[in-house]
């Protein structure tokens, strides 16, 4: 019953928006705003006859590779910087600077160094995704509870187990917040990296449709990207809920107590 209710609540607004779009464009003759009915009608033809493996899959693989690489780099460097006061003092202003650069402007620069292949596109995703992960990890490690640190030290936990049992789990709520931001940045960069120079990919395909005035097809690409974004964020939430189950419980206990 309540499950049904929450599903209704979840889908009410999207359903409304789709309905508005559908009726508003129903009789549209505007070339750039084709009826939603037409767009949906071309969806199957556009994507499900080869493009799923030739374009969508390569895009997603690059996203996953770049995102995971950014996680590893961001968490690794974040733990190192967060654990060392000197490193923090020296690097923090620089990090803020790099974070402030909009990642898309790096694409033309990275093309010079890394060419126009998969490597460049993954690199673009990494350079965009790494900052939120890094800065949040630094913050999470820095804010670790003093008493917990003292506890770990007094029981003589070695460096390795301090990392595994204290630092990483202690910073995990913050790391997850950074990873969530990074995911949306990553999806944007996955598309943008393909708009400059590419021969396949979702972003490339959408630009291609636009240039050839295949307008309904272009719209299906936009919808597909939206669906991919929602699916990835749902996956993320699933993983986060598992990893941070203790944190949810702790927060609830603190609120009630």
């Amino acid at each position: 019953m309540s499950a049904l209710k929450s599903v209704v609540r979840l889908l009410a607004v999207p359903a409304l928006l789709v309905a508005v779009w559908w009726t508003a464009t129903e009789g549209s003759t505007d070339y750039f705003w084709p009826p939603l009915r037409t767009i949906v009608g071309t969806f199957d033809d556009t994507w499900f006859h080869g493009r799923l493996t030739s374009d969508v899959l390569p895009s997603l693989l690059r996203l996953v590779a770049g995102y995971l690489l950014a996680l590893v780099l961001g968490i690794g460097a974040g733990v190192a910087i967060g654990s060392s006061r000197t490193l923090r003092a020296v690097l923090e202003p620089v990090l803020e600077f790099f974070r402030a650069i909009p990642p898309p402007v790096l694409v033309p620069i990275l093309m010079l160094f890394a060419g126009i292949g998969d490597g460049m596109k993954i690199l673009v995703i990494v350079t965009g995704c790494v900052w939120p992960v890094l800065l949040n990890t630094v913050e999470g490690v820095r804010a670790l509870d003093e008493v917990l640190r003292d506890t770990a030290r007094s029981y003589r936990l070695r460096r390795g187990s301090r990392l595994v049992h204290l630092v990483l789990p202690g910073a995990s709520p913050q790391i997850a917040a950074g990873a969530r931001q990074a995911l949306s940045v990553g999806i944007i960069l996955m598309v943008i990296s393909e708009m400059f120079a590419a021969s396949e990919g979702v972003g490339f395909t959408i630009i291609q449709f636009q240039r050839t005035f295949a307008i309904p097809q272009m719209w299906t690409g936009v919808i597909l990207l939206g669906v991919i974004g929602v699916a990835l964020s749902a996956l993320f939430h699933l993983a986060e809920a598992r990893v941070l189950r203790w944190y949810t419980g702790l927060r609830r206990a603190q609120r009630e107590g």
Partner: protein
Amino acid sequence: MTMTTADTGTMLEVRHLKKVFQGRGRTVEAVGDLTFKVKAGELVCVVGPSGAGKTTLLKCVAGLLDSTSGEVLLEGRAVTGPPPGMAVVFQEYGRSLFPWMTVRQNIELPLKEKKVPKAERQRLVREALAAVGLSDAADAHPWQLSGGMQQRVAIARAVAYEPHILLMDEPFAAVDAQTRAELEDLVRSLWKRLGVTVLFITHDIDESVYLAERVIVLSSSPTEVLADVAIDLPAERDQLGTRSLPRFAELRAEVYRLVQQAKDGERPSTIGKVAR
């Protein structure tokens, strides 16, 4: 438990310990000049006014804080970092347990680190939990327990570690009176059963007299030992009987008077002779 002690039977020796905190434009002399000894197997309470540097003393003894001068010797060796064979129970019980671990994992982690074999580990965890009356809570997370239970888990973790010396920093300051009485009796019974040396910091005078064999009274900051009071109460203590003994009242009054003097800024040099 086997005891490895220096030939003199001294477990802990604090010599002219001094700790000055250097802040921005502010220096605090938290500990002035502390000297005392604790014999192996003793249960010693340290009382002193708030801000007297009790926590600072404990952290120096635990090797969590470097002293400005003076030294701390544990079993004859100078303490430069957290020594083996020592367990600490902090005042902030809620923050000293790893919230991402279950009670069992919390207790087991230091044992894993000590490379205690698995079967032995499981036995130690089981016994420690039984000793603090929490056998049913092994698979709960700390935040699912009440404050008193959390502090019990912290004690169980310390006990399972089989330390030679147990340091406790106002461990019961934040639990209700009933729980507090139970935990006091728990500490006495564990101390008697395990023969562990206990250094127990508190600001509660009744608690110090009830628990200890000796009470060390600190002066206010910069801290020195103001007095060292032997508690000659019977070894078998219980909350009602012991606390209604005339001798308990006398000792309590004496410690109370000393703490009052400490608050008034009295120093060992000004009272001339140290009560013994």
